[in-house]
C-alpha cells in the first residue's frame, strides 16, 4: 500500500521542489559551519599568535575567547535558522504533498 503512495509522492513535482530546496539549504548551512570551523582550525594550527591579539589595547584578554564563544553562538543560531524554515515552510509543503498522495 505505501509503495503506491510513495510512487505518487515521487511523481508530484512539489516533492522535487521540496527536496531540492531543503537539501540546498541544509548543505549551504553545513558548508558555512564547516568552512568557518576549518578556517579557525587552520589559524590555530598555522598562526596561533593571531588569536592572542588583545581585545583592548594594552589588555591581557585575547580575542581568542570571544571568537570561540562567537562561533558556538553562531553555529547554534544557524541550527535555529534551519529549523525555522524546516519546521515552517518546508513542513507545510511536506504535509501538502502527503495529503495529495493519500487522497
Amino acid at each position, binding site marked *: 500500500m505505501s509503495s503506491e503512495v510513495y510512487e505518487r509522492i515521487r511523481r508530484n513535482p512539489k*516533492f522535487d521542489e521540496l527536496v531540492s530546496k531543503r537539501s540546498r539549504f541544509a548543505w549551504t548551512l553545513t558548508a558555512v559551519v564547516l568552512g568557518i570551523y576549518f578556517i579557525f582550525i587552520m589559524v590555530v594550527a598555522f598562526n596561533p599568535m593571531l588569536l592572542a591579539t588583545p581585545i583592548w589595547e594594552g*589588555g591581557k584578554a*585575547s580575542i581568542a575567547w570571544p571568537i*570561540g564563544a562567537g562561533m558556538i553562538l553562531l553555529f547554534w543560531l544557524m541550527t535555529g535558522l*534551519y529549523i525555522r524554515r524546516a519546521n515552517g515552510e518546508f513542513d507545510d509543503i511536506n504535509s501538502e504533498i*502527503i495529503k495529495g498522495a493519500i487522497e
Partner: protein
Amino acid sequence: MNRGMLKFAAAALAVSWMGLAMAAPDVGQAQKQALNVHAIVMFFIFVMMTLGITYWAAKRTKSASDYYAAGGGITGTQNGLAIAGDYMSAATLLGLTSMTYFQGFDGYIYCICFYVGWPFIMFIMAERLRNLGKFTFADITSYRLDQRRVRTVAAIGSLTVVVFYLIAQMVGAGQLIKLLFGMEYWMAVVIVGVLMVIYVTFGGMIATTWVQIIKACLLLGGGTLVMLLAFSQFGFSLETLATKAVENSKKGMALMAPGAFLSDPVTAVSLSLGLMFGTAGLPHILMRFFTVPNAKEARKSVFIATLCVGFFFTVVAIMGLSAITIVGTNPQYFEGGDLAGKLLGGGNMPAMHLAHAVGGNLMLGFLSAVAFATILAVVAGLALAGASAISHDLYANVIRQGQATEAEEVRVSKMSSLGLGVIAVLLGIAFEKQNVAFMVGLAFGVAASCNFPVLILSMYWKGLTTRGAIWGSIAGLVSAVLIVVLSKAVWVTVLGNKDPIFPYEQPAIFSMPIAFFFAWLGSVTEKSARAAKEIEAFEDQYVRAQTGFGAAGAAAH
C-alpha cells in the same frame, strides 16, 4: 616554547586529556577522602527522586515502543535536554575545566571540536534518522538490506561502543566517588551498576529519559551557579579575569592563545573527525531520535541540545579560567599547602575545588552529587542502547527473524540489561588499576568508523548493498580497533611494550576512509539480483526519509 617541550606537551595532552575530556575522568589511583556528608545526602535525594520516576515510568511502560522509545511521546525540548544529558559526562565538567585551568585557550578549542558535530547532525541527519528509524539505528541501516546480516554487524558495532564506554565510565565512577564521597571503589561501582539496571529494566526509555533530563538540569544549574559565583569575584569582567589568570598561572600569556593542541596536525584532525562523526555514530545518542513523535520535534531536540552543550562548554571554560586565580593561589587546595606542588586529589579537581572555594562544603557536596548523578545517567543511556541492540536487533530480528512477540522481545531486553550491568560491574572492578583512557577513544573511534559510515551511506547513497554495508562496518571496526591497540595508548601504556607500532593514537582519519572505501567496493562489485532489488528499494526509502510518510509514529496513548 621550544620544539621539544611542544612535543612533550602534545604527548601529555594526547595521553591524558583526550581520555579525560571524553568520558569518565581517569583520576588515576585516587586517594580515598573523608566521608562527604553533604554530597551523600544530596546524592541520596537524587536517587530517591529517580527511583520514584522509575516506578512511575514502569507503570506506563506497556508496549515495546514504550520500552525502547518512550512510545514516541517525548517532546522536542525534553529530548533536547536528554540528549545534552547523554552527551555531557562527568568528564566534561571535570576534564574540560581542568584542561582550561592548565592549558587556557586549548581547553576551549577542545570544547569547540566537541561541539561542531551538533550543527552537522541537525542539518544532515536529524530528520532522516527520525523518519526512518524505529528503536535502534540498525532499523535504518537494514531498512532495505538483508535484515539478519546487516543487523548482526550493526549490533556488534553498537555493543563494542557500549561495552568500552561503560567500562571507562565505571572505572571513572569508582575513582571519582572514592575521591569525592570517601566511599570504597567497589561499592561505588556496585551502586552505579545496580541503579543503572533498575532504571533500565523497570523504567525503560521513559525512566532513562527523565533521569537524563534531571541530570542535565542539575549539571547546567550547578555549573552555572559555580561559574557565576566565581566570575563575580572578577566583577564579571573578562579583562580582569584574564589579567589575573595570566598573573597567576605558570603559563602566563600562553593561556590566551592556542598552544600545544594542534602541534601535531594529523592527531588534531583525526581527533576532530572522531569527535564529530563519533557523536553521530553513538548508539545511545542515535536512539534518542526515536523517542520524539516526528521530524519537527527531532529538529527541535537538536536545537535545544546544541544550545545546552554550547552554553555548558562556555560555562566550563570560565570556571577553568577563574579557578586559575581562585584555586591556584590558595594553598589549602594543594598537597602540603605547596602552591608549586600538585592539586589535592589530582589534576581533575579544579572544578571541585572551585565549588568549595566559592560556596563552601555545601556547594562542593552539591557538585559532587551532580557528578555522580551524571555518571549514573550516562551509564543508564548506554545500558539501554546495548540491551536494545541485543533484544531488538540480535534476538527479535536475527535469531527469531521477526517472529518474536513484543513481550518476548522486551523480556530479552530486560535480561540483557541485567547481563550488561553484571558485566559492567565485574569489568569495572577488574580494570580498577588500569589506565582506561584509551577505551573512550576506542568507543568514539568505533562509532565514527563502524557505525557512522554505513549509517550515512544507507541514508544518502542509493548504491549501498548488503555486502557493502557489511564490508564497510567490519573494515571500520577492525581498523579502528587495530589502530588503537597498536598505538601508544594500548601497546605501550597498557601492554608495556617499548615503542608503539602505529604512530598515531586517534584512528578516525585512517579508519573512516577505510570504512567508506570498503562499503563502496563491496557495493559496486555486488551484481546479484538481491543487490539490484536493494538499490531499487532506495526510492521508497528516499521518499519516506524526506517526507516522513510511513514513519513509526507516536504510540496511541
